[in-house]
């Protein structure tokens, strides 16, 4: 009798193992390796529930930096001169547009540099007076088109135009597709104008886009979606987006600590990885519970009718535990 009881108890082991959160542990480990940290069990649960993701323009489908997309000197052979003088001056600027222009050339010898908020920057490059900024500020004709177009003036003469735009990640469309394949609705949120935002959304393959630069307005957009029944995640940089991230059901941001999902960068591909891992962990846990339960039930039945002794019961239990663990951990893989 005692042998039969022992066989019954041994047969239950796979069920006990299936109750452990092995799948979540495996998902967390894989996430860390992929530069993703779930800030607690709640983050992973929330990630599973999310059905709509706001992707901020900076860093998700773009590299987070602007690039010069067009160089238009007023005289055709001034292309290099235009690059040189504008870039040399913009090395003194911390504005994203300035940083993009600065990458066109090495730093130069600057003097009397002055930034005019909302207009541009002026100074001397190798003793030549140079200004880069809004064409209207320089007395030049404004130009319509995609991106941000600035005018360049050298030696008090209009010299040309430079256009700066978002640098879209090479795999942006693929990443967006992966997110959508996870059942997520995507909304591109941009602080740029409507024309540029629409263009960016089109290049990234995102159908919904919203152009809003005021924090309150962006926050309100999230709440509206929540009120319509969505579980909303926001992927955005922490700087300047505190309210937006706080309003979301799940915040994905670049940080070293905090709630939500912390990521090495906001690359849409990495975000897809995070959501994928959360969903797969749930599937892994379900598989493990099913397999553990099946082995335990079979063992108990066979032990109860006396077919299974202690040793065979232990063998069945071991096989059941192994199968449960494999189901829990493998389900976390891609």
């Amino acid at each position, binding site marked *: 009798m005692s042998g039969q009881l022992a066989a019954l108890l041994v047969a239950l082991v796979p069920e006990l193992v299936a109750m452990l959160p092995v799948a979540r542990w495996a998902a967390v480990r894989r996430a860390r390796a992929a530069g993703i940290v779930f800030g607690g069990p709640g983050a992973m649960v929330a990630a599973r529930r999310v059905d709509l993701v706001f992707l901020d323009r900076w860093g998700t489908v773009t590299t987070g930096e602007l690039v010069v997309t067009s160089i238009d000197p007023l005289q055709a*052979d*001034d292309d*290099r*001169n235009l690059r*040189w*003088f504008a870039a*040399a001056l913009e090395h003194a600027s911390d504005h994203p547009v300035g940083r993009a222009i600065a990458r066109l*050339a*090495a730093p*130069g*010898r600057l003097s009397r540099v002055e930034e005019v908020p909302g207009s541009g920057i002026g100074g001397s*490059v*190798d*003793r*030549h*007076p140079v200004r880069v900024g809004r064409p209207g500020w320089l007395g030049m004709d404004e130009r319509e088109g995609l991106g941000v177009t600035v005018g360049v003036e*050298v*030696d*008090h003469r209009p010299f040309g135009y430079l256009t700066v735009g978002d640098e879209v990640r090479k795999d942006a469309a693929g990443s967006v597709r992966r997110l959508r394949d996870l059942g997520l609705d995507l909304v591109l949120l941009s602080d740029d104008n409507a024309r540029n935002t629409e263009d960016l959304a089109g290049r990234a393959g995102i159908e919904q886009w919203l152009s809003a630069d005021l924090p309150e307005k962006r926050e309100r957009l999230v709440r509206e979606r929540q009120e319509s029944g969505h579980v909303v995640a926001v992927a955005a940089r922490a700087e300047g987006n505190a309210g937006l991230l706080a309003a979301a059901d799940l915040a994905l941001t670049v940080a070293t600590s905090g709630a939500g999902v912390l990521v090495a960068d906001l690359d849409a591909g990495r975000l897809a990885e995070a959501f994928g891992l959360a969903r797969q962990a749930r599937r892994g846990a379900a598989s493990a519970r099913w397999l553990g339960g099946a082995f335990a039930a079979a063992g108990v039945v066979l032990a109860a009718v006396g077919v299974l002794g202690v040793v065979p019961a232990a063998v069945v239990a071991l096989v059941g535990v192994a199968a449960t663990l494999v189901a829990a951990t493998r389900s976390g893989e891609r």
Partner: protein
Amino acid sequence: MTQMHQPVGLPGSVVWMLKSLEGEVRAVAARVARTIVEILADDTGPEVSDHTVFMAVHSALAHFVDLSMGREAPYVAIDDHYRRIGYRLAAAGRDRVVVDQALHVATTEVWDELRKRAAANELSAAALNAINEAVTGYVEHLTHQVDLGFEAGSEARDQDAGVARARLVDRLLGGAEQGEVEQQAAIAGWEVPDELTVMVVEIGERQRIARDALDDVALTRRRPTGQVVICPADQADTVTEQVRDAVPEARVVVCWPVPPGDVAAAWRWVNRALGLVRAKVIPARPVIHCRRHRTEIWLHAEPVMRRQLAQELLQPLFAETPNSREILSETLLVWLETRDSAPAIAARLGVHPQTVRYRWKRINDLFGEALHDPEFVVQLTLLLKASVPLWVAGDQSDFRRYQELTR
């Protein structure tokens, strides 16, 4: 100092013997003078004639005899005479050894004569001693007078030499004829070399370079624009260092070597160079070597012509801002001088090579085909070399005048 004599107290036998000599003083003096002239024929110069020697011996002998006879005989004339001899020798730059030798010869001759007479008169040894002492004392007195005269003559000679050197400087700076310069140089005791270096030292009004601060080969004199220094060309470096040691805070402008006939021109050049340093055309350094700034010195000799050339050749730059004019002309000048690549010119100007390419494009836009005209390029190079430092220093008068004319 002249003294009134106290008669020499000699024994009666000596006085008697000298009395016998009194009538023969002139003959003895003539003989002694002849001996002196014969012995020192090679050493005496025009300053000491035979007559002078005779007069010196005769007057001294006569005066000694007078003193020995106990007569009142003032020293004034004889002392003056011997001082004059010393003075003349010193003033002529002669060594005073010749006087000492003459005195020695005279003393020996006179003493021989006295001994002969003493022997003839059978004078005692005591009497002979007395006369020896008298003669020795008298000669010492005369020697002292020569010393005084020689000392005064030396002082006067120094002063005369300074004046002569100053006159020589004036002759050289005034562009005097070669003969006149050489004559004055001979008076000053200065040898005129084939090539001279002329310097101007920029010192304060009350400052002077002491004559002994420089080697004797250097002539120097204060002039209204500064202190001039003239020296043989091969001594220029040494003299420049001596000038720097004497007045370390003063700027020295050194001309290239010139023949003596061109010293006046060299003086103009060093003064012009000094003016250009003050106008910041030539970089201010403690020692300015004119050789390195010949073009500037040359072209600034004709300021009106330079300005007219600027207004004619540089018209394309006149519409530019002063800053643009300055940097474009500076770049153009470096290119004309070196014909280097953009990176090399950029390194020289301390700018980025692309800045040089941009400037070169602008220069070509402004000047066009003119830059292919050799005559234009030569004139432009010289003009820019003379003018760019002026504009860089902030003198924009060339352009202002043009704008006023064309307004």
